[in-house]
């Protein structure tokens, strides 16, 4: 009973975003889809031609495009989720005062957080699905593996979306977004995306391996290239915990900010 109410109210919050969909939004979504595809072509295919094949930690040798593609997929799931839950969420909370209106209804802060996150996931999942189609068409993975990778991208989106929301609730102004962008870009470059983490010195490698994008890349790469190992269970657990923690912080902080 309690969970159905929670789900219903969260769905109503997400439904608000569906109602607000206007043509300009689809154009913005085109950008979200194109970004990883452009990276895949410029770096995976382009730079890959100079690099040639690459050996995975397990010893298997794959083309550089095959190596980079899963990382671009994970990174696009991350940025899709972060865009929606940082810029858009912060704007709605601070300036449009949209949530004030919602909170005057039975809807609770945690339900707003869940609803917004679900919406970010719907949007992010469209990017991921489209990119997986590109990967299959380019023979970078199999259709079966792509089907398995899809729910993993949804989980990655949830984890980063929850993280983004939690961060948004502690931001003070738009200036703080420079920090998010810098952090996001650092993650994008160094999470085993373009170079295997094994290439880094031990301390750096350890640092890289605890970042959420590294765990995401590891999971997607395991699914799209194989083989799946126990460490991938750890990846899933890591992302589940991040989701729960992010949502919990976001809900708590929203209550502090909006229900003074």
């Amino acid at each position, binding site marked *: 009973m309690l969970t159905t*109410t929670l789900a219903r109210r969260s769905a109503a919050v997400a439904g608000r975003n569906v*109602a607000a969909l206007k043509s300009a939004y689809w154009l913005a979504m085109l950008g979200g889809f194109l970004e990883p595809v452009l990276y895949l072509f410029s770096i995976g295919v382009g730079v890959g031609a100079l690099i040639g094949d690459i050996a995975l930690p397990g010893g298997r040798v794959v083309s550089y495009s095959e190596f980079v593609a899963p990382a671009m997929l994970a990174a696009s799931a991350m940025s899709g989720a972060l865009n929606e839950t940082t810029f858009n969420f912060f704007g709605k909370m601070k300036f449009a005062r949209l949530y004030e*209106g919602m909170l005057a209804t039975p809807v609770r802060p945690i339900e707003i957080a869940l609803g917004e996150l679900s919406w970010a996931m719907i949007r992010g999942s469209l990017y991921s699905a489209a990119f997986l189609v590109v990967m299959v068409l380019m023979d970078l993975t199999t259709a079966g593996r792509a089907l398995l990778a899809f729910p993993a991208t949804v989980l990655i989106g949830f984890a980063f979306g929850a993280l983004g929301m939690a961060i948004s609730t502690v931001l003070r102004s738009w200036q703080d977004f420079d920090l998010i962008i810098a952090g996001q870009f650092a993650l994008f470059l160094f999470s085993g995306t373009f170079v295997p983490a094994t290439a880094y010195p031990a301390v750096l490698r350890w640092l890289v391996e605890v970042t959420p994008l590294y765990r995401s890349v590891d999971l997607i790469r395991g699914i799209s290239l194989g083989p799946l190992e126990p460490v991938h269970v750890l990846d899933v657990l890591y992302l589940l915990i991040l989701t729960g923690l992010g949502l919990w912080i976001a809900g708590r902080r929203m209550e502090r900010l909006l229900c*003074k």
Partner: protein
Amino acid sequence: MTSLIHARGLIKRFGDFTAVDGIDVDVQPGEAFGFLGPNGAGKSSTMRMIGCVSPPTDGVLRILDMDPRRDGPRIRARLGVCPQLDNLDPELSVLENLTTYARFFGIPRKVARERAAELLDFVQLGERAGSKVEPLSGGMKRRLTIARAMVNEPDIVLLDEPTTGLDPQARHLVWERLFRLKQQGVTLVLTTHYMDEAEQLCDRLVVMDGGKIVAEGSPRALIEAYSTREVVELRFPDDQGSYVGKLEGVGERLEVLPDRILLYVTDGDAALAEVHRRSLDPAGSLVRRSSLEDVFLHLTGRTLVD
């Protein structure tokens, strides 16, 4: 307990600042109840506590015989809220603002559409259903917010300064709609710093100042208790204060404001005749009935709208 809203010793503090300082309030079903006071009196903080979006710091607060701390969502499901600043959704159309809002209450889509259409007609925005919110005038936006507050057929409608910032014509239109709601038996709770608004709409009101309730009653009873039947306003061309001695004994009481003197009297015309008999020659004079403004001035020594 029959009160829809019941507060005893209700307190709201923000850090060291006490916004609401131990107020007692009871609102009965079908009543139009007002919080009158200047800006910063604690009206909005009180409204936010009643709206279950701001937890009370201390004291008793029961709404619809429930506890806002524990039953927030269940109480809010039966409240309609019209906030001081419009927070309509600029990305949605006029109609969508109502139908989307209805979904937050779990109202089925079909019912939401029917009710939204009725409410838009009620607030005279039926023809603007497909319009964006942005181009609407201030008065239209406020009426739309009132319609939005009605979408869940609430037991209590909370209106925080419903006509602040509206031009006179728009204000009267809002008043007229609110009066219609009152006639339908909807319980209205509103804050205002306009005495004419309180007199127009409220059956009963409390006067708030500095977080405390300084008087309570119907507008008529408050005026009778704290003011005289009529007031003579006199404007002198030079220092108002220098006329105080010369006016002694004319009325029951007088107040000196920077730009005028108010004489509290039973018979305004007789008092004005007496002023002229004393060869005082005010640049302007006005005889009027006492209003809540006079009550407030008497209770706090300050005017309501500075």
